[in-house]
Protein backbone atom coordinates (compact mmCIF):
# COMPACT_ATOMS: atom_id res chain seq x y z
CA UNK A 1 0.00 0.00 0.00
CA UNK A 2 1.47 3.33 -1.07
CA UNK A 3 1.62 6.28 1.27
CA UNK A 4 -1.44 8.50 0.92
CA UNK A 5 -0.80 12.26 1.04
CA UNK A 6 -2.20 13.57 4.31
CA UNK A 7 -4.82 15.81 2.77
CA UNK A 8 -6.35 13.00 0.77
CA UNK A 9 -7.29 10.99 3.84
CA UNK A 10 -11.08 10.74 4.17
CA UNK A 11 -10.81 10.04 7.90
CA UNK A 12 -7.92 11.13 10.05
CA UNK A 13 -7.41 10.59 13.79
CA UNK A 14 -4.69 12.71 15.37
CA UNK A 15 -3.52 11.70 18.84
CA UNK A 16 -7.01 10.71 19.85
CA UNK A 17 -7.57 9.38 23.35
CA UNK A 18 -10.55 8.41 25.46
CA UNK A 19 -10.66 7.88 29.20
CA UNK A 20 -14.11 7.03 30.53
CA UNK A 21 -15.21 8.77 33.74
CA UNK A 22 -14.33 6.71 36.78
CA UNK A 23 -11.69 4.72 34.97
CA UNK A 24 -8.03 5.23 35.71
CA UNK A 25 -6.72 3.75 32.48
CA UNK A 26 -7.58 5.08 29.04
CA UNK A 27 -9.80 2.95 26.78
CA UNK A 28 -7.92 4.47 23.88
CA UNK A 29 -4.63 6.26 24.44
CA UNK A 30 -3.03 8.49 21.84
CA UNK A 31 -4.20 6.84 18.63
CA UNK A 32 -3.37 8.23 15.22
CA UNK A 33 -4.79 6.71 12.06
CA UNK A 34 -5.82 7.68 8.62
CA UNK A 35 -8.16 6.09 6.14
CA UNK A 36 -7.77 7.07 2.48
CA UNK A 37 -10.84 7.57 0.34
CA UNK A 38 -12.40 4.36 -0.92
CA UNK A 39 -10.59 2.09 1.51
CA UNK A 40 -12.00 -0.48 3.90
CA UNK A 41 -10.04 -0.25 7.13
CA UNK A 42 -10.82 -3.02 9.59
CA UNK A 43 -10.18 -2.42 13.28
CA UNK A 44 -9.63 -5.76 14.98
CA UNK A 45 -8.45 -6.87 18.38
CA UNK A 46 -9.45 -8.64 21.59
CA UNK A 47 -12.26 -7.29 23.78
CA UNK A 48 -11.21 -4.17 25.65
CA UNK A 49 -8.89 -3.07 22.85
CA UNK A 50 -10.96 0.06 22.23
CA UNK A 51 -11.88 -0.78 18.64
CA UNK A 52 -15.56 0.06 19.12
CA UNK A 53 -14.68 3.12 21.19
CA UNK A 54 -12.44 4.28 18.35
CA UNK A 55 -15.20 3.77 15.81
CA UNK A 56 -17.77 5.59 17.90
CA UNK A 57 -15.47 8.56 18.38
CA UNK A 58 -15.51 9.11 14.63
CA UNK A 59 -19.24 9.94 14.69
CA UNK A 60 -18.97 11.20 18.25
CA UNK A 61 -21.38 8.72 19.79
CA UNK A 62 -18.45 8.73 22.21
CA UNK A 63 -16.72 12.06 22.74
CA UNK A 64 -12.93 11.86 22.56
CA UNK A 65 -11.09 13.08 25.67
CA UNK A 66 -8.41 14.65 23.54
CA UNK A 67 -7.12 14.76 20.00
CA UNK A 68 -8.58 15.80 16.66
CA UNK A 69 -10.67 13.85 14.19
CA UNK A 70 -11.12 14.87 10.57
CA UNK A 71 -13.91 13.45 8.45
CA UNK A 72 -14.09 14.41 4.77
CA UNK A 73 -11.91 17.44 5.37
CA UNK A 74 -14.06 18.71 8.25
CA UNK A 75 -12.99 18.90 11.86
CA UNK A 76 -15.48 16.51 13.45
CA UNK A 77 -14.91 17.86 16.94
CA UNK A 78 -15.99 21.35 15.87
CA UNK A 79 -19.07 20.21 13.94
CA UNK A 80 -22.56 19.90 15.46
CA UNK A 81 -22.77 16.17 16.28
CA UNK A 82 -26.10 15.59 14.51
CA UNK A 83 -24.92 17.49 11.42
CA UNK A 84 -21.74 15.40 11.35
CA UNK A 85 -23.65 12.13 11.76
CA UNK A 86 -25.98 12.81 8.87
CA UNK A 87 -22.86 12.68 6.65
CA UNK A 88 -21.74 9.34 8.02
CA UNK A 89 -23.44 6.00 7.45
CA UNK A 90 -23.65 3.91 10.59
CA UNK A 91 -24.31 0.17 10.79
CA UNK A 92 -24.39 -1.70 14.10
CA UNK A 93 -24.57 -5.35 15.08
CA UNK A 94 -28.11 -5.25 16.50
CA UNK A 95 -29.15 -3.39 13.32
CA UNK A 96 -30.98 -0.73 15.37
CA UNK A 97 -33.79 -0.75 12.81
CA UNK A 98 -36.86 1.17 13.95
CA UNK A 99 -39.42 -1.56 14.64
CA UNK A 100 -42.34 0.86 14.27
CA UNK A 101 -41.37 1.95 10.79
CA UNK A 102 -41.56 0.02 7.55
CA UNK A 103 -38.47 -1.04 5.66
CA UNK A 104 -38.95 1.83 3.21
CA UNK A 105 -39.35 4.33 6.06
CA UNK A 106 -36.29 2.94 7.80
CA UNK A 107 -34.16 3.29 4.70
CA UNK A 108 -35.47 6.81 4.11
CA UNK A 109 -34.57 7.98 7.63
CA UNK A 110 -31.53 10.15 6.92
CA UNK A 111 -32.86 11.61 3.65
CA UNK A 112 -35.92 12.67 5.62
CA UNK A 113 -33.71 14.22 8.31
CA UNK A 114 -31.89 16.07 5.55
CA UNK A 115 -35.18 17.40 4.21
CA UNK A 116 -35.31 15.66 0.84
CA UNK A 117 -38.66 15.81 -0.93
CA UNK A 118 -40.87 12.74 -1.03
CA UNK A 119 -40.40 11.63 -4.65
CA UNK A 120 -36.63 11.84 -4.26
CA UNK A 121 -36.73 9.76 -1.07
CA UNK A 122 -39.03 7.18 -2.66
CA UNK A 123 -36.75 6.86 -5.69
CA UNK A 124 -33.66 6.52 -3.51
CA UNK A 125 -35.30 3.89 -1.31
CA UNK A 126 -36.30 1.85 -4.33
CA UNK A 127 -32.77 2.05 -5.69
CA UNK A 128 -31.24 0.94 -2.38
CA UNK A 129 -33.62 -1.97 -1.85
CA UNK A 130 -32.43 -3.23 -5.21
CA UNK A 131 -28.77 -2.43 -4.49
CA UNK A 132 -28.62 -4.55 -1.33
CA UNK A 133 -30.51 -7.39 -2.97
CA UNK A 134 -33.87 -7.23 -1.20
CA UNK A 135 -37.24 -7.89 -2.80
CA UNK A 136 -39.18 -4.77 -3.73
CA UNK A 137 -42.29 -6.12 -2.00
CA UNK A 138 -40.51 -5.97 1.37
CA UNK A 139 -40.64 -2.17 1.31
CA UNK A 140 -43.90 -1.99 3.25
CA UNK A 141 -43.14 -4.66 5.81
CA UNK A 142 -41.89 -4.07 9.32
CA UNK A 143 -38.38 -5.11 10.42
CA UNK A 144 -39.84 -7.72 12.76
CA UNK A 145 -41.05 -9.66 9.74
CA UNK A 146 -37.56 -10.06 8.24
CA UNK A 147 -34.81 -12.58 8.90
CA UNK A 148 -31.59 -11.50 10.61
CA UNK A 149 -29.69 -11.41 7.33
CA UNK A 150 -32.40 -9.38 5.62
CA UNK A 151 -32.50 -6.95 8.53
CA UNK A 152 -28.75 -6.45 8.27
CA UNK A 153 -29.12 -5.69 4.54
CA UNK A 154 -31.74 -3.09 5.42
CA UNK A 155 -29.27 -1.68 7.97
CA UNK A 156 -26.65 -1.30 5.25
CA UNK A 157 -29.17 0.23 2.84
CA UNK A 158 -30.27 2.70 5.52
CA UNK A 159 -26.64 3.69 6.14
CA UNK A 160 -26.10 4.31 2.43
CA UNK A 161 -29.35 6.22 1.94
CA UNK A 162 -28.02 9.77 1.80
CA UNK A 163 -24.93 8.61 -0.09
CA UNK A 164 -22.52 9.53 2.70
CA UNK A 165 -18.83 9.41 1.81
CA UNK A 166 -18.06 7.49 4.99
CA UNK A 167 -19.52 4.30 6.46
CA UNK A 168 -18.90 3.11 9.99
CA UNK A 169 -19.71 -0.54 10.65
CA UNK A 170 -19.63 -1.93 14.18
CA UNK A 171 -19.51 -5.73 14.04
CA UNK A 172 -22.39 -5.67 11.56
CA UNK A 173 -22.32 -9.39 10.88
CA UNK A 174 -21.63 -10.53 14.43
CA UNK A 175 -25.16 -11.67 15.24
CA UNK A 176 -25.99 -13.74 12.15
CA UNK A 177 -25.17 -17.38 11.58
CA UNK A 178 -21.91 -18.31 9.81
CA UNK A 179 -23.46 -19.14 6.43
CA UNK A 180 -25.39 -15.89 6.26
CA UNK A 181 -22.32 -14.04 7.50
CA UNK A 182 -20.18 -15.35 4.66
CA UNK A 183 -22.81 -14.31 2.16
CA UNK A 184 -23.14 -10.84 3.69
CA UNK A 185 -19.34 -10.44 3.63
CA UNK A 186 -19.23 -11.33 -0.06
CA UNK A 187 -22.13 -8.95 -0.73
CA UNK A 188 -20.36 -6.14 1.10
CA UNK A 189 -17.25 -6.52 -1.08
CA UNK A 190 -19.45 -6.64 -4.13
CA UNK A 191 -21.30 -3.52 -3.02
CA UNK A 192 -18.06 -1.74 -2.20
CA UNK A 193 -16.77 -2.42 -5.71
CA UNK A 194 -19.73 -0.40 -6.96
CA UNK A 195 -20.11 2.38 -4.37
CA UNK A 196 -16.49 2.91 -3.26
CA UNK A 197 -17.16 4.27 0.21
CA UNK A 198 -14.56 4.92 2.84
CA UNK A 199 -15.40 2.26 5.40
CA UNK A 200 -14.20 1.70 8.94
CA UNK A 201 -15.24 -1.77 10.00
CA UNK A 202 -14.93 -3.18 13.52
CA UNK A 203 -14.76 -6.90 14.19
CA UNK A 204 -13.21 -9.29 16.68
CA UNK A 205 -12.96 -11.97 14.00
CA UNK A 206 -9.50 -11.96 12.39
CA UNK A 207 -10.72 -14.04 9.45
CA UNK A 208 -13.40 -11.45 8.70
CA UNK A 209 -10.76 -8.72 8.98
CA UNK A 210 -8.47 -10.50 6.53
CA UNK A 211 -11.27 -11.12 4.10
CA UNK A 212 -12.76 -7.63 4.07
CA UNK A 213 -9.94 -5.24 4.84
CA UNK A 214 -7.91 -3.34 2.29
CA UNK A 215 -5.94 -2.64 5.42
CA UNK A 216 -6.23 -4.08 8.89
CA UNK A 217 -5.40 -2.29 12.13
CA UNK A 218 -4.66 -4.61 15.01
CA UNK A 219 -5.36 -3.00 18.37
CA UNK A 220 -4.26 -4.12 21.81
CA UNK A 221 -5.92 -3.41 25.16
CA UNK A 222 -6.04 0.32 25.81
CA UNK A 223 -6.32 1.21 22.14
CA UNK A 224 -2.65 0.56 21.39
CA UNK A 225 -2.10 0.23 17.65
CA UNK A 226 0.13 -2.83 17.32
CA UNK A 227 0.22 -3.02 13.55
CA UNK A 228 -1.56 -1.58 10.54
CA UNK A 229 -1.15 -2.75 6.98
CA UNK A 230 -2.58 -4.90 4.24
CA UNK A 231 -3.68 -8.38 5.32
CA UNK A 232 -0.85 -9.88 3.23
CA UNK A 233 1.79 -7.72 4.89
CA UNK A 234 0.52 -8.40 8.37
CA UNK A 235 0.30 -12.14 7.82
CA UNK A 236 3.73 -12.27 6.21
CA UNK A 237 5.41 -10.14 8.78
CA UNK A 238 3.62 -9.76 12.12
CA UNK A 239 5.16 -6.77 13.89
CA UNK A 240 5.42 -8.52 17.24
CA UNK A 241 4.43 -11.51 19.33
CA UNK A 242 1.03 -10.04 20.19
CA UNK A 243 0.10 -9.72 16.54
CA UNK A 244 1.49 -13.17 15.72
CA UNK A 245 -0.51 -14.71 18.54
CA UNK A 246 -3.66 -12.82 17.58
CA UNK A 247 -3.32 -14.02 13.98
CA UNK A 248 -3.28 -17.58 15.26
CA UNK A 249 -1.18 -20.64 14.60
CA UNK A 250 -2.67 -21.11 11.12
CA UNK A 251 -1.17 -17.87 9.86
CA UNK A 252 0.30 -19.65 6.83
CA UNK A 253 -3.09 -21.05 5.86
CA UNK A 254 -4.66 -17.63 6.27
CA UNK A 255 -2.06 -16.20 3.90
CA UNK A 256 -2.84 -18.90 1.39
CA UNK A 257 -6.46 -17.80 1.42
CA UNK A 258 -5.34 -14.34 0.25
CA UNK A 259 -3.22 -15.55 -2.71
CA UNK A 260 -4.99 -16.31 -5.97
CA UNK A 261 -3.65 -19.07 -8.18
CA UNK A 262 -3.16 -16.74 -11.15
CA UNK A 263 -0.50 -14.85 -9.21
CA UNK A 264 1.81 -17.86 -8.96
CA UNK A 265 3.74 -19.81 -11.61
CA UNK A 266 2.28 -23.20 -12.44
CA UNK A 267 4.27 -26.34 -13.19
CA UNK A 268 3.45 -28.38 -16.33
CA UNK A 269 3.69 -31.51 -14.14
CA UNK A 270 4.54 -35.14 -15.08
CA UNK A 271 2.22 -35.22 -18.08
CA UNK A 272 2.73 -37.48 -21.12
CA UNK A 273 0.76 -38.03 -24.33
CA UNK A 274 -1.18 -41.27 -24.93
CA UNK A 275 1.02 -43.98 -26.47
CA UNK A 276 4.14 -43.03 -24.50
CA UNK A 277 6.29 -46.06 -23.62
CA UNK A 278 6.67 -47.26 -20.00
CA UNK A 279 10.38 -46.28 -19.96
CA UNK A 280 9.63 -42.73 -21.12
CA UNK A 281 6.77 -42.44 -18.59
CA UNK A 282 9.05 -43.63 -15.80
CA UNK A 283 11.73 -41.07 -16.56
CA UNK A 284 9.15 -38.23 -16.64
CA UNK A 285 7.75 -39.39 -13.29
CA UNK A 286 11.25 -39.65 -11.86
CA UNK A 287 11.88 -35.98 -12.59
CA UNK A 288 8.93 -35.15 -10.30
CA UNK A 289 9.70 -37.92 -7.83
CA UNK A 290 6.21 -39.48 -8.15
CA UNK A 291 4.93 -42.95 -9.02
CA UNK A 292 2.27 -41.82 -11.53
CA UNK A 293 1.85 -39.81 -14.72
CA UNK A 294 -0.81 -37.49 -16.03
CA UNK A 295 -2.17 -38.14 -19.50
CA UNK A 296 -3.00 -35.46 -22.06
CA UNK A 297 -1.99 -33.51 -25.13
CA UNK A 298 -0.61 -29.98 -24.71
CA UNK A 299 -3.45 -27.84 -23.32
CA UNK A 300 -5.51 -30.81 -22.09
CA UNK A 301 -5.34 -33.18 -19.16
CA UNK A 302 -7.58 -36.26 -19.27
CA UNK A 303 -6.57 -38.02 -16.05
CA UNK A 304 -3.78 -39.97 -14.45
CA UNK A 305 -2.57 -43.54 -13.70
CA UNK A 306 0.15 -45.33 -11.75
CA UNK A 307 3.45 -46.35 -13.46
CA UNK A 308 2.76 -50.00 -12.56
CA UNK A 309 -0.45 -49.74 -14.59
CA UNK A 310 1.46 -48.26 -17.57
CA UNK A 311 3.90 -51.20 -17.41
CA UNK A 312 1.06 -53.67 -17.20
CA UNK A 313 -0.63 -52.14 -20.29
CA UNK A 314 2.67 -51.82 -22.23
CA UNK A 315 2.02 -48.13 -23.03
CA UNK A 316 0.18 -45.01 -21.77
CA UNK A 317 -3.53 -45.50 -22.61
CA UNK A 318 -5.94 -42.89 -23.94
CA UNK A 319 -8.98 -43.97 -21.92
CA UNK A 320 -9.92 -45.51 -18.56
CA UNK A 321 -7.84 -43.01 -16.60
CA UNK A 322 -8.24 -41.89 -13.00
CA UNK A 323 -9.84 -38.42 -13.00
CA UNK A 324 -8.57 -35.30 -11.23
CA UNK A 325 -11.49 -34.81 -8.91
CA UNK A 326 -11.11 -31.10 -8.21
CA UNK A 327 -10.52 -28.88 -11.20
CA UNK A 328 -9.39 -25.48 -9.91
CA UNK A 329 -9.62 -22.21 -11.79
CA UNK A 330 -7.08 -19.41 -11.59
CA UNK A 331 -9.40 -17.32 -9.41
CA UNK A 332 -9.27 -19.94 -6.67
CA UNK A 333 -6.95 -19.37 -3.73
CA UNK A 334 -3.85 -21.32 -2.77
CA UNK A 335 -5.80 -22.48 0.29
CA UNK A 336 -8.31 -24.18 -1.98
CA UNK A 337 -5.42 -25.63 -3.99
CA UNK A 338 -3.91 -27.05 -0.84
CA UNK A 339 -7.24 -28.58 0.06
CA UNK A 340 -7.36 -30.24 -3.37
CA UNK A 341 -3.82 -31.56 -2.93
CA UNK A 342 -4.47 -33.23 0.40
CA UNK A 343 -7.75 -34.67 -0.87
CA UNK A 344 -6.40 -36.59 -3.93
CA UNK A 345 -4.12 -39.56 -4.14
CA UNK A 346 -1.99 -37.87 -6.80
CA UNK A 347 -1.15 -35.11 -4.26
CA UNK A 348 -1.38 -32.33 -6.85
CA UNK A 349 -3.93 -29.66 -7.77
CA UNK A 350 -4.65 -29.40 -11.48
CA UNK A 351 -5.56 -25.91 -12.71
CA UNK A 352 -7.81 -25.29 -15.70
CA UNK A 353 -9.17 -22.34 -17.56
CA UNK A 354 -12.44 -23.76 -18.77
CA UNK A 355 -11.35 -26.94 -20.55
CA UNK A 356 -7.81 -25.76 -21.10
CA UNK A 357 -5.20 -27.31 -18.81
CA UNK A 358 -2.84 -24.71 -17.39
CA UNK A 359 -0.59 -26.63 -15.04
CA UNK A 360 -0.28 -28.10 -11.56
CA UNK A 361 0.42 -27.02 -8.03
CA UNK A 362 2.16 -29.22 -5.49
CA UNK A 363 2.38 -28.84 -1.73
CA UNK A 364 6.06 -27.96 -2.11
CA UNK A 365 5.25 -25.24 -4.63
CA UNK A 366 2.59 -23.71 -2.33
CA UNK A 367 4.87 -23.92 0.66
CA UNK A 368 7.59 -22.13 -1.29
CA UNK A 369 5.13 -19.36 -2.10
CA UNK A 370 4.68 -18.36 1.55
CA UNK A 371 8.20 -19.07 2.79
CA UNK A 372 10.04 -17.19 0.08
Amino acid at each position, binding site marked *: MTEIPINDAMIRLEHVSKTFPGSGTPAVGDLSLEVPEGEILVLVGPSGCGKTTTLKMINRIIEPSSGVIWVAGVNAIETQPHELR*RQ*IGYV*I*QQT*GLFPHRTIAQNIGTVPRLLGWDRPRIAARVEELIDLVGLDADMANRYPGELSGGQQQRVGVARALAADPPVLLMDEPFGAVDPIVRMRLQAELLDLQARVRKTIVFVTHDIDEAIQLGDRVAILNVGGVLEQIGSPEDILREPANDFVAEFLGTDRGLKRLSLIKIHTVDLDPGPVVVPGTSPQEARSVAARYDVDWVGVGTPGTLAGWLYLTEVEHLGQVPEHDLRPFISRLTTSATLKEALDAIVSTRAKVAAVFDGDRYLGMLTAERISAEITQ
Partner: protein
Amino acid sequence: MILAQLEGQPLVRWDWVADHLDDIWAATKEHLVLTGIALGVGLILSVALSLLAIRYRKTYTPITWITGILYTIPSLALFSILVPITGLSVLTAEIGLVGYTLLILIRNIVAGIDGVDPAIKEAAIGMGYTRLRLLIQIEVPLALPVIIAGIRIASVTTIGLVTVAALIGKGGLGFFILQGLRRFFTTEIVVGAVMSVALAVAIDLLLVLAQHALTPWVRAKATV
Protein backbone atom coordinates in the same frame (compact mmCIF):
# COMPACT_ATOMS: atom_id res chain seq x y z
CA MET B 1 -87.58 -4.58 60.30
CA ILE B 2 -85.47 -2.91 57.62
CA LEU B 3 -83.40 -6.06 57.39
CA ALA B 4 -86.48 -8.11 56.75
CA GLN B 5 -87.35 -5.75 53.96
CA LEU B 6 -83.91 -6.40 52.42
CA GLU B 7 -84.30 -10.13 52.86
CA GLY B 8 -87.60 -10.29 51.02
CA GLN B 9 -86.72 -8.28 47.91
CA PRO B 10 -85.44 -9.71 44.61
CA LEU B 11 -81.82 -8.96 43.60
CA VAL B 12 -82.92 -6.55 40.88
CA ARG B 13 -86.30 -4.92 40.54
CA TRP B 14 -86.51 -4.31 36.81
CA ASP B 15 -89.44 -1.95 37.10
CA TRP B 16 -87.24 0.39 39.12
CA VAL B 17 -84.52 0.18 36.46
CA ALA B 18 -87.05 0.95 33.72
CA ASP B 19 -88.34 3.95 35.70
CA HIS B 20 -84.88 5.36 36.27
CA LEU B 21 -83.17 5.02 32.90
CA ASP B 22 -82.72 8.79 32.70
CA ASP B 23 -81.07 8.90 36.12
CA ILE B 24 -78.81 5.99 35.22
CA TRP B 25 -77.78 7.70 32.00
CA ALA B 26 -77.09 10.98 33.78
CA ALA B 27 -75.00 9.23 36.44
CA THR B 28 -73.09 7.34 33.77
CA LYS B 29 -72.29 10.58 31.99
CA GLU B 30 -71.15 12.17 35.25
CA HIS B 31 -69.02 9.10 35.91
CA LEU B 32 -67.40 9.39 32.49
CA VAL B 33 -66.75 13.10 32.87
CA LEU B 34 -65.16 12.63 36.32
CA THR B 35 -63.02 9.80 34.94
CA GLY B 36 -62.09 11.71 31.80
CA ILE B 37 -60.96 14.80 33.70
CA ALA B 38 -58.94 12.70 36.13
CA LEU B 39 -57.20 10.77 33.34
CA GLY B 40 -56.62 13.85 31.20
CA VAL B 41 -55.12 15.93 33.99
CA GLY B 42 -53.29 12.88 35.34
CA LEU B 43 -51.77 12.20 31.94
CA ILE B 44 -50.61 15.79 31.47
CA LEU B 45 -49.01 15.86 34.93
CA SER B 46 -47.50 12.42 34.44
CA VAL B 47 -45.95 13.31 31.11
CA ALA B 48 -44.43 16.43 32.61
CA LEU B 49 -43.08 14.57 35.65
CA SER B 50 -41.85 11.68 33.49
CA LEU B 51 -39.94 14.07 31.25
CA LEU B 52 -38.39 15.57 34.35
CA ALA B 53 -37.48 12.09 35.63
CA ILE B 54 -36.00 11.07 32.29
CA ARG B 55 -34.01 14.26 31.88
CA TYR B 56 -32.85 14.41 35.50
CA ARG B 57 -32.57 10.85 36.76
CA LYS B 58 -32.13 11.88 40.36
CA THR B 59 -35.68 13.19 40.48
CA TYR B 60 -37.20 9.79 39.67
CA THR B 61 -36.87 8.35 43.17
CA PRO B 62 -38.52 11.30 44.97
CA ILE B 63 -41.22 11.47 42.29
CA THR B 64 -42.15 7.80 42.72
CA TRP B 65 -41.86 8.15 46.47
CA ILE B 66 -44.34 11.00 46.68
CA THR B 67 -46.75 9.60 44.10
CA GLY B 68 -46.37 6.24 45.84
CA ILE B 69 -47.63 7.73 49.10
CA LEU B 70 -50.52 9.36 47.23
CA TYR B 71 -51.29 5.92 45.80
CA THR B 72 -51.13 4.27 49.22
CA ILE B 73 -53.43 6.71 51.00
CA PRO B 74 -56.99 5.34 50.69
CA SER B 75 -59.19 7.51 48.49
CA LEU B 76 -61.79 8.04 51.20
CA ALA B 77 -59.07 9.18 53.60
CA LEU B 78 -57.71 11.59 51.02
CA PHE B 79 -61.19 12.98 50.32
CA SER B 80 -61.70 13.38 54.07
CA ILE B 81 -58.47 15.29 54.46
CA LEU B 82 -59.34 17.54 51.52
CA VAL B 83 -62.98 18.26 52.40
CA PRO B 84 -62.19 20.82 55.12
CA ILE B 85 -60.00 22.66 52.58
CA THR B 86 -61.78 22.31 49.24
CA GLY B 87 -65.26 21.33 50.43
CA LEU B 88 -67.68 18.76 49.02
CA SER B 89 -66.71 19.69 45.48
CA VAL B 90 -65.64 18.30 42.14
CA LEU B 91 -62.22 19.75 42.88
CA THR B 92 -61.88 17.56 45.98
CA ALA B 93 -62.87 14.48 44.01
CA GLU B 94 -60.52 15.28 41.12
CA ILE B 95 -57.49 16.02 43.32
CA GLY B 96 -57.88 12.56 44.80
CA LEU B 97 -58.60 10.83 41.50
CA VAL B 98 -55.72 12.51 39.67
CA GLY B 99 -53.42 11.61 42.55
CA TYR B 100 -54.06 7.92 42.03
CA THR B 101 -53.27 7.95 38.33
CA LEU B 102 -49.84 9.52 38.75
CA LEU B 103 -47.82 6.60 40.08
CA ILE B 104 -49.20 4.13 37.53
CA LEU B 105 -48.81 6.49 34.58
CA ILE B 106 -45.38 7.81 35.49
CA ARG B 107 -44.03 4.35 36.15
CA ASN B 108 -45.28 3.07 32.82
CA ILE B 109 -44.11 6.08 30.83
CA VAL B 110 -40.61 5.94 32.30
CA ALA B 111 -40.40 2.15 32.07
CA GLY B 112 -41.67 2.26 28.49
CA ILE B 113 -39.08 4.78 27.42
CA ASP B 114 -36.32 3.09 29.40
CA GLY B 115 -37.30 -0.17 27.75
CA VAL B 116 -36.56 1.05 24.23
CA ASP B 117 -33.70 -1.04 22.85
CA PRO B 118 -30.44 0.94 23.35
CA ALA B 119 -29.30 -0.24 19.91
CA ILE B 120 -32.26 1.53 18.31
CA LYS B 121 -31.46 4.72 20.17
CA GLU B 122 -27.79 4.46 19.23
CA ALA B 123 -28.66 3.90 15.58
CA ALA B 124 -30.93 6.96 15.65
CA ILE B 125 -28.29 9.13 17.29
CA GLY B 126 -25.72 7.74 14.87
CA MET B 127 -27.89 8.90 11.96
CA GLY B 128 -28.08 12.41 13.35
CA TYR B 129 -31.28 12.52 15.46
CA THR B 130 -31.44 15.35 17.94
CA ARG B 131 -32.49 14.57 21.53
CA LEU B 132 -36.01 15.96 21.08
CA ARG B 133 -36.58 14.24 17.74
CA LEU B 134 -35.37 10.96 19.23
CA LEU B 135 -37.90 11.28 22.05
CA ILE B 136 -40.88 12.21 19.91
CA GLN B 137 -40.28 10.06 16.84
CA ILE B 138 -38.58 7.00 18.27
CA GLU B 139 -38.85 6.61 22.04
CA VAL B 140 -42.47 7.61 22.59
CA PRO B 141 -43.90 5.52 19.72
CA LEU B 142 -41.92 2.49 20.82
CA ALA B 143 -42.98 2.99 24.44
CA LEU B 144 -46.66 3.25 23.46
CA PRO B 145 -47.62 -0.35 24.31
CA VAL B 146 -46.30 0.08 27.86
CA ILE B 147 -47.74 3.58 28.20
CA ILE B 148 -51.16 2.43 27.00
CA ALA B 149 -50.98 -0.50 29.41
CA GLY B 150 -50.53 2.09 32.15
CA ILE B 151 -53.47 4.16 30.88
CA ARG B 152 -55.60 1.01 30.90
CA ILE B 153 -54.79 0.27 34.53
CA ALA B 154 -55.24 3.90 35.48
CA SER B 155 -58.62 4.15 33.73
CA VAL B 156 -60.04 1.00 35.32
CA THR B 157 -58.73 2.12 38.70
CA THR B 158 -60.20 5.60 38.32
CA ILE B 159 -63.62 4.32 37.25
CA GLY B 160 -63.67 2.25 40.45
CA LEU B 161 -62.56 5.15 42.62
CA VAL B 162 -65.15 7.53 41.25
CA THR B 163 -67.81 5.43 43.03
CA VAL B 164 -66.19 6.26 46.37
CA ALA B 165 -66.51 9.96 45.57
CA ALA B 166 -70.25 9.43 46.05
CA LEU B 167 -69.55 9.90 49.75
CA ILE B 168 -68.59 13.50 49.04
CA GLY B 169 -71.56 13.88 46.73
CA LYS B 170 -69.75 13.53 43.38
CA GLY B 171 -69.78 9.85 42.63
CA GLY B 172 -71.48 9.25 39.29
CA LEU B 173 -72.71 5.66 39.45
CA GLY B 174 -71.41 5.42 43.01
CA PHE B 175 -74.45 7.49 43.97
CA PHE B 176 -76.70 4.46 43.32
CA ILE B 177 -74.48 2.22 45.44
CA LEU B 178 -74.59 4.68 48.33
CA GLN B 179 -78.34 5.20 47.98
CA GLY B 180 -78.86 1.46 47.86
CA LEU B 181 -76.90 1.03 51.07
CA ARG B 182 -78.80 3.79 52.84
CA ARG B 183 -82.20 2.48 51.79
CA PHE B 184 -81.26 -1.22 51.93
CA PHE B 185 -82.34 -1.41 48.31
CA THR B 186 -80.32 -4.06 46.45
CA THR B 187 -81.41 -3.00 42.98
CA GLU B 188 -79.59 0.31 43.25
CA ILE B 189 -76.40 -1.34 44.53
CA VAL B 190 -76.41 -3.82 41.67
CA VAL B 191 -77.15 -1.16 39.05
CA GLY B 192 -74.27 1.00 40.34
CA ALA B 193 -71.85 -1.92 40.49
CA VAL B 194 -72.78 -3.47 37.15
CA MET B 195 -72.79 -0.18 35.27
CA SER B 196 -69.42 0.72 36.77
CA VAL B 197 -67.93 -2.61 35.73
CA ALA B 198 -69.48 -2.28 32.27
CA LEU B 199 -67.99 1.17 31.93
CA ALA B 200 -64.55 -0.11 32.96
CA VAL B 201 -64.74 -2.97 30.48
CA ALA B 202 -65.94 -0.69 27.67
CA ILE B 203 -63.18 1.86 28.24
CA ASP B 204 -60.60 -0.91 28.47
CA LEU B 205 -61.81 -2.34 25.18
CA LEU B 206 -61.58 1.08 23.54
CA LEU B 207 -58.02 1.44 24.78
CA VAL B 208 -57.09 -2.00 23.46
CA LEU B 209 -58.50 -1.03 20.07
CA ALA B 210 -56.62 2.26 20.21
CA GLN B 211 -53.39 0.44 20.92
CA HIS B 212 -54.06 -1.92 18.04
CA ALA B 213 -54.52 1.00 15.69
CA LEU B 214 -51.55 2.97 17.01
CA THR B 215 -48.99 0.16 17.05
CA PRO B 216 -49.44 -1.90 13.86
CA TRP B 217 -45.83 -3.11 13.98
CA VAL B 218 -46.46 -5.07 17.16
CA ARG B 219 -48.93 -7.32 15.34
CA ALA B 220 -46.72 -7.61 12.27
CA LYS B 221 -43.98 -9.05 14.45
CA ALA B 222 -46.32 -11.66 15.86
CA THR B 223 -47.05 -13.11 12.41
CA VAL B 224 -43.48 -14.36 11.96
